[in-house]
């Protein structure tokens, strides 16, 4: 499961998700308001927060489709950065 920082940063880019609504792992992020510029902003804020840089195959729209996929991608990069 992801940490509080991830949830906070992701929620800040989801204008259609109410504060009291759960952030499910398979939530369709696009439907909840994560658009193209939102993806770019989220990417930058996640990289800064976790001190990583995503490259190559991680930088596709699929990475930003659902919270669980995005967190799995980040976790991989965080582990390899350690």
């Amino acid at each position: 499961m992801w940490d509080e920082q991830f949830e906070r940063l992701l929620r800040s880019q989801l204008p259609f998700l109410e504060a009291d609504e759960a952030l499910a792992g398979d939530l369709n992020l696009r439907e909840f308001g994560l658009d193209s510029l939102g993806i770019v902003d989220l990417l930058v804020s996640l990289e800064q927060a976790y001190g990583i840089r995503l490259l190559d195959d991680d930088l596709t729209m699929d990475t930003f489709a659902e919270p669980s996929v995005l967190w799995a991608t980040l976790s991989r990069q965080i582990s390899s950065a350690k």
Partner: protein
Amino acid sequence: MSPAGYADLAKYMMVSPRARHLREVADSVLDYSLMDEYRKAKEAYSEAGQVAFLISCFALAEWAQQELGIEPGLCSGASFGEKVAIAYAGSLTFSDTVRLTVAMSRCEESYFRLEHQDVVTQSVARIPEESLREILADLTGRGEWSDISCFIDDDIFMVSMCEQSLEKFTAAVRATGGIPLGVMRPPMHSAAFGSLRRRMADEVLADFRFAEPRLPIISDQDGSAVVTAEAARSLLLSGITQPVNWPAALRSMRERGIAKLYVAGPDALFGRVRSAAGSFDVVTVNQRMALRPRRPLKYAERKAS
């Protein structure tokens, strides 16, 4: 033109008296019911979708002017938004702008049905222009064609190329830390479309009479001020072959003393990029804002106004 949800725009066009009136004007010049066609349209940039977008942007710009008490110094519109700016500046009547939108859309559709069928326009973000140009130079070196169609922000671009070049291109972008966003079909804004420009001039724009804009229109291609009827016509034609350069348009507005931008209509891009949000006070004027009940002015506000 940002893809807008059908439900959002349809509701606005049904509820807002201003948009409803414009919809009636549109219906009187179209050979179909706009709402019926818009509901059935499958493509994000369908002819009916373009007219619905035009109505919404125009109605919201008028709403902002009247309800928020704005006296605009100039106006501008990126890509499809050029048509809205031309209508707003009174260079074409609203009903003529509807006719023009439909005629240009049909001309483009028939052109791309036969020409450049393999060309698409790919958006990419988080890549410096220098890195993008290196990647495009590599493509050129391999004999593959490409052209920058939109400069959207300092690190966001749209590039036209043949579909077969896409995979190598997007992989190279990702290798620099850039991120490929969406792909548009048919493509737009490229020097390769010179014959479409000629056809549009002869078959479409020749039928329209433009007037001198009542306020300057800032060109989304180079930031110059469009102040004559002929320049307004040329803006639409050169938009076919010239790239959009939104940072240049924003720079020009800043240099002309503009500090506040009212972005009228559905927008997921042009009012939100760093070049806009970082340099201007940006007010988003969308259909939700216009439909929100307005509270009565407080005593102090009444006195001040």
